């Protein structure tokens, strides 16, 4: 377990470190003069302001000095200020972060429940029409563009039926975006569960359980499902990362006031300090939560607990 966790922890640290480098140098990769691009947005920008910003971002120095300047600022919690409006970047992002986490985790719960149910029954009814229908529906689920699904749900349940608000905050506004975000991943989890369950059904201990004459539900839930869910649960960290990524698009459709909406606007406005802050916060959050999920998984899985590496 320790070696597994150490490795995961190492990767997490490495990722965060690489992100800081990538983010710090992002402004260097922009074609044209980033300072010109930033400041052409504010009609009254003076030469002094532009030079000050250049110095602030370390663009007047070499790459290494720029990186350490940026890192130093980060360590002091200074993520810079937005070009448009001069707002401090970090609080701006942190204000939106809970909304995104809320959306992603709700969607993860929905996707897991739906996906596991679906995959379990598909495996249980192997070879029947049930499996075919379920598996075809997962291919559909993977194929529908989330942004289109979101619009359709909005049109039907928001506008036509009026069951859910078309935008806003709070629980009832969360349902449609969470379902939209969950759809693709429910399909993926469903496929994962199915193949894992199929393997479990073939295994020796299952035959033993059946032959002992235990009730059907006991065999299925106690033995089969528990074993079959191991690979599914181990993939939770990855799933969560994809939920966070998917949230960017889904938020935009539903005007959900999260990091994704902020990021898309920032990219369209070329507000580089905000883009940098977003990428950094996003990957740190994803890395930390994936790590957390892995730790929980490792604590639960006896094979890893006993020192094996998965």
């Amino acid at each position, binding site marked *: 377990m320790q070696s597994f966790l150490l490795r995961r922890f190492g990767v997490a640290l490495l990722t965060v470190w690489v992100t800081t480098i990538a983010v710090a140098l992002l402004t260097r990769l922009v074609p*044209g003069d980033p300072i010109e*691009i930033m400041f*052409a947005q504010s*009609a*009254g920008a003076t030469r002094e302001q532009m030079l000050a910003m250049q110095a602030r971002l370390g663009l007047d120095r070499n790459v290494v000095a720029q990186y350490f300047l940026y890192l130093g600022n980060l360590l002091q919690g200074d993520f810079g200020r937005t070009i448009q*409006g001069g707002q401090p970047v970090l609080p701006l992002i942190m204000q939106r972060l809970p909304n995104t986490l809320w959306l992603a985790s709700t969607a993860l719960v929905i996707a897991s429940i739906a996906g596991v149910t679906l995959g379990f029954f598909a495996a249980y009814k192997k070879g029947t029409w049930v499996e075919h229908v379920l598996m075809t529906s997962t291919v559909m689920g993977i194929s529908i563009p989330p942004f289109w699904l979101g619009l359709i749900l909005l049109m039907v349940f*928001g506008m036509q039926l009026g069951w859910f608000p078309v935008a806003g905050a709070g629980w009832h506004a969360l349902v449609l975006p969470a379902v939209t975000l969950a759809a693709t991943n429910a399909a993926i989890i469903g496929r994962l569960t199915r193949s894992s369950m199929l393997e479990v059904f073939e295994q020796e201990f299952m035959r033993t359980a059946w032959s002992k004459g235990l009730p059907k539900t006991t065999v299925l839930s106690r033995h089969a499902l528990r074993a079959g869910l191991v690979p599914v649960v181990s993939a939770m960290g990855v799933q969560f990362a994809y939920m966070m990524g998917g949230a960017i698009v889904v938020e935009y459709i539903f005007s959900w006031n999260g990091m994704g909406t902020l990021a898309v606007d920032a990219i369209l406005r070329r507000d580089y300090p905000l883009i940098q802050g977003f990428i950094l916060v996003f990957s740190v959050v994803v890395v930390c939560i994936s790590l957390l999920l892995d730790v929980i998984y490792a604590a*639960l899985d006896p094979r890893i607990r006993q020192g094996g590496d998965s």
Partner: protein
Amino acid sequence: MKFSVRPVRAAQWLLPSAACLLLAAPYALSDDTLVWARYGDIDTLDPHGATSTLSMQVWHQIYDTLLARDSDGQPVPNMAESWAVSDDGLMVSFNLHDDILCHDGSAFDAEDVVYTWERAFSDSRPSNTQSAWGPVTHIDTPDSTTAVFHFSEPFAAFVPFMADPFASMLCRGNEDEAGFGTSAAIGTGPWVFESWRSGDRILLSSNPDYINRGRLADNPGSPYMAELEIRVLREGQSRLAALRSGEVHIAEPPIEAVSNIQSDAELDLYIADNTGQNVFIEFAISRAPFDDVRARRAVAYAIDPDVALQLAFGDLVNREWCTVAQGVAGNDQDFCRSIGYEHDPEQARALLAELGHDMNNPLEVKFMTWTGGNRQRVLQVFQNQLRQVGINASLEVMDIGSLNAQVQTENLTTSGRGSMDMMGWSWYDPDILHQLWHSPGAYQGYNSAELDEMLHQTRVLSDEAERLAMVQNVQQYLIENAVHIPLYTPGWEWLYAARSNIDGFIVGPFNQPDLIGVRLND
């Protein structure tokens, strides 16, 4: 193994809670809160930190200005009970009311005027609209209610600027607020800043000490509503739905829904006029083909704005023939039209033929504009019309900030494909032409010594009639040389839909909504 995930149990738990969600009552409003929904958020609470209309409209609620505007857009006394311009135009003095209170409880006096100006002119963080103040050298404060601005040169556009939200008066108390612009904003306006959750909502409360001295609103004192909530709802359909459900009282409607609103007894439509907004075409004149006036004129003849506007907006905007928009001094449609370009594709083809282009050898250009306000639709119509005469325009639609950057880059580029753009500016004074076209110009674009001299005169001529005559000369120059081809007005955020039980809602000149006199009827 320790897993206890049980889908069946989980489903049992999830279903009832989903049902609860369905039954949850929609967000209920207090009767004392006025909710105004817009498509986007402010950039900052600091009036020196941004230029967007969205920001400016909020500053107008929190801060007040030395002068206000009457319904014709002319400056009238407000925080200043009177003002005087010296004969040489080098001094403008204001007499302030002595009973104005800042939101932090301190008294507003001439020192606050100095503070505001010094901040706008500071080296570290000058105002984005610093140039609009003109060549102010210093301010004298002979007593606490008198502020005298001194100029190095006469500046005719200064007095109207004092009625603009960009010249909002700040209280000195902001100096001690670390979060000024983000979590704090101390002004003297009708509404007191309470909170701002970025991307979501701004909450303001009625200022009990407010005295309405110059604003148009039909209310002499503090706002009738206890609170004002300015909410961000990005989607037009969402704003409309929220308006219909009563969750929101005032909102910008989607253009596509305007006819529905007009026939809806529960909703009223307000159309801002005299907004000062001017949407126009400009060119990268630094290089071929648009360094040649014939190419610019060909574009002007080829397009038919009336058709484009009808398709994109119906009757919701006006054709604009002048380079200063309707509502601004110097706007004279008949005069401008007499020198303007009527739709004439034949003329366009003839001009292009002179340049060696026709349908088989089309002129390839880039055509840019900024997102929103149905502008990309206008551009698509233009693209179609240009194609009829042999101009292939590829469209690029981007954020206004990126567009500003791009236009400047194009102007500084001396080779490659030609570039033009549909730009929009809003200003309350013909001085806009100086800001746009006096070299180096807003985008380092057109440079001409002759034009520069005329523009300079529009700043220093203190006789109003002489100044306006010069403004007309400038307009004539710009239009005849096809530097600035006016298209339409208003161009953005000029439509408001309100529930019909809203009384006293006013959209003042230059698109400034006033909510002081708003009351909710049952």
